[in-house]
């Protein structure tokens, strides 16, 4: 593992498996009378959230607290961030407070990268979602969930077929998942209207389809991405209704999936838009499990970054 977790592309297959295996051991903690380990006692984890994301912040907070770390929540609201304090000055403040790790959520793609490489802080940086770039811990929890259901909870995901549907252009979840699932040997198919696919997607390690119906019968796990209604105003698609009809996962489409296939969504869902309510609540839906697994995976990441001796920051810039 590198000293930071900025991109799913930074994880080798061995790194990724180490995180998943560690998460699996840590998942047992949830079943114990005392859901706490002393491992990160005396270490400080700062949740630096420039964007509202209660679910991700709570997940990281629970993970850090179960490892006995001190957690400081630094949210944009009510802090000097909203008064225009620069990322640099905030980082220098966190450094002065002795942050051992900074979990950062930011609307600007690359902000975690800046934090990690600019020399403002010494601690590890964990990307908790940056702009339209990446969300590596989401990809890890998705891979964990897929592995539990489809690969017997061990090893990699070789040969599993994962279809990711929705606003790939603006999705950090999709980017991280393409990197990580590919690293773990899965075959990924992205499905979106052409307007919601980034230029150059044909060079990503995955297949691309404009139709949701074609890949579904060969899909082991289908991941629906949140589509924001405001994309409509930028003419990415004509109307919510048309989007839902062409790309939404309803009961009829779910029936086209193989029997063992699972339905995933990173949340928060737009029920009735990209996913039907009956689909979200169906037996195939593992959406609630994803949330549970998120805590274990984030514990694993924090343990592997902070639990041992300080990792030497990788000199090499990652692409």
């Amino acid at each position, binding site marked *: 593992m590198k000293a930071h977790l900025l991109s799913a592309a930074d994880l080798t297959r061995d790194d990724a498996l180490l995180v998943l295996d560690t998460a699996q051991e840590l998942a047992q903690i949830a079943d114990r009378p005392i859901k706490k380990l002393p491992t990160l006692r005396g270490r400080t984890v700062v949740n630096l959230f420039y964007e509202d994301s209660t679910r991700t912040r709570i997940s990281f907070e629970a993970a850090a607290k179960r490892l006995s770390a001190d957690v400081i929540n630094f949210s944009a609201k009510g802090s000097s961030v909203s008064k225009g304090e620069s990322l640099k000055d905030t980082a220098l403040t966190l450094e002065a407070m002795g942050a051992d790790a900074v979990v950062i959520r930011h609307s600007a*793609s*690359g902000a975690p990268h*800046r934090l990690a490489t600019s020399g403002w802080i010494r601690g590890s940086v964990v990307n908790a979602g940056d702009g339209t770039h990446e969300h590596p811990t989401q990809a890890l929890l998705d891979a964990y969930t897929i592995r539990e259901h489809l690969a017997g909870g061990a090893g990699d995901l070789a040969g599993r077929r994962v279809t990711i549907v929705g606003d790939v252009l603006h999705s950090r979840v999709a980017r991280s998942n393409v990197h990580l699932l590919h690293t773990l040997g899965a075959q990924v198919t992205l499905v979106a209207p052409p307007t919601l696919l980034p*230029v*150059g997607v044909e060079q990503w390690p995955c297949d691309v389809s404009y139709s949701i119906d074609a890949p579904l019968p060969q899909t082991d796990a289908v991941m629906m991405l949140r589509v924001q209604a405001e994309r409509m105003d930028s003419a990415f698609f004509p109307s919510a209704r048309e989007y839902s009809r062409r790309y939404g996962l309803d009961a009829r489409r779910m029936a086209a999936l193989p029997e063992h296939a699972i339905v995933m969504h990173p949340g928060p869902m737009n029920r009735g838009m990209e996913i039907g309510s009956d689909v979200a609540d169906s037996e195939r839906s593992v959406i609630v499990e994803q949330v549970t697994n998120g805590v274990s995976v984030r514990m694993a990441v924090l343990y592997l970054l902070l639990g041992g001796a300080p990792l030497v920051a990788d000199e090499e810039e990652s692409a």
Partner: protein
Amino acid sequence: MSTTVIRDVSINGERRDVVIAGESIAEVVASGSADTAGATVIEARSLIVLPGLVDLHTHLREPGREDAETVETGTRAAAAGGFTAVHAMANTDPVADTAGVVEQVWRLGAQAGYCDVHPVGAVTVGLAGQRLAELGAMADSAARVRVFSDDGKCVSDALLMRRALEYVKAFDGVIAQHSQEPRLTEDAQMNEGVMSGVLGLKGWPAVAEEAIIARDVLLTEHVDSRLHVCHVSTAGSVDLIRWAKSRGIRVTAEVTPHHLMLTDDLVATYDPVYKVNPPLRTAADVQALRAGLADGTIDVVATDHAPHPSEDKDCEWQAAAMGMLGLETALAVVAETMVVTGLLDWAGVADRMSIAPARIGRLEGQGRPIAPGEPANLVLIDPAARTVVTASALASRSRNTPYAGLDLPTRIVATFLRGRRTYGSDA
């Protein structure tokens, strides 16, 4: 009258003694034959001399952003880069859209004395793209403005662009267009391509530049005026300009040193020192730009020297200002990308960096032959030396150079503005 003898220097491959007397070149004679009595002698056996460089595209930031650059620091940087004339872009605060502002900038340049400062006038009032600025008044002012540009913003209104092109014909002016279709580049952060998709940064498509160039060359043909295309950055733009020139359209074009050298994969560092408008493009674009500059499709190298204080770069990519320093590294980058590669010889460099820009800007006394009677605007270069770029050693007030730490060919030994040394020691 002081006399300087540059002894045994190479002019287009021939060794000469160049005698500077007062503001002019007095003699250019065979090596060793100049009278050095009472003269300052510069031994230049390993050096070459070119006409002083002329920049068509410089941001001096004064008035308004003196924290980033002033006319004084900017022209000192220019002299250190071998320039004897720069065109100061109009996007200052207040905007250079009146005779008063352009005269102020012109006067500041004359006072500083490091190089000639020719203000560029804004095309539209306040760069707002709504009404034509008083182009004639600026042309008639003491600054004698001939180049007009809303640089930083595109004159995107086709009718306004047509009128501007027509109007400047009265005083042989030229419209220097910043070609950027605004709707296609709203909030754009980097070249649209594989990298923007991977990095999750909003893309800036090549077509946003090319569509405006295509429109503008057709407008220029229609009204038979002069168009200059600022900072061409894509292979498609080079093709369009080549086509327009083949039709006899009076279009000229510039490329920046950074677009000749740097590519969009540098953005993977998310370091805003690489954030620039137009954005860094792909390796294929870089190759096309070099070829275009070599074959004359692109007429000049212009720096687009854009100083920014550190707080505007020491931040998230999206929050950062666009632009990079260029004056002090331009010649080295052109040497690295064009001379070392064999695409251009030193005569070609003199044309693209001095003669052609002086002609486009209608400057007298710049970009002239190195011959008796001509103004002594000269730059003395050691072509075999190498220089490591050190941001803290730059004369510019800002530090946003993308070349820091790079080892680049050439060293500027001295710059002369009308016989007076503006850079380099007397040693």
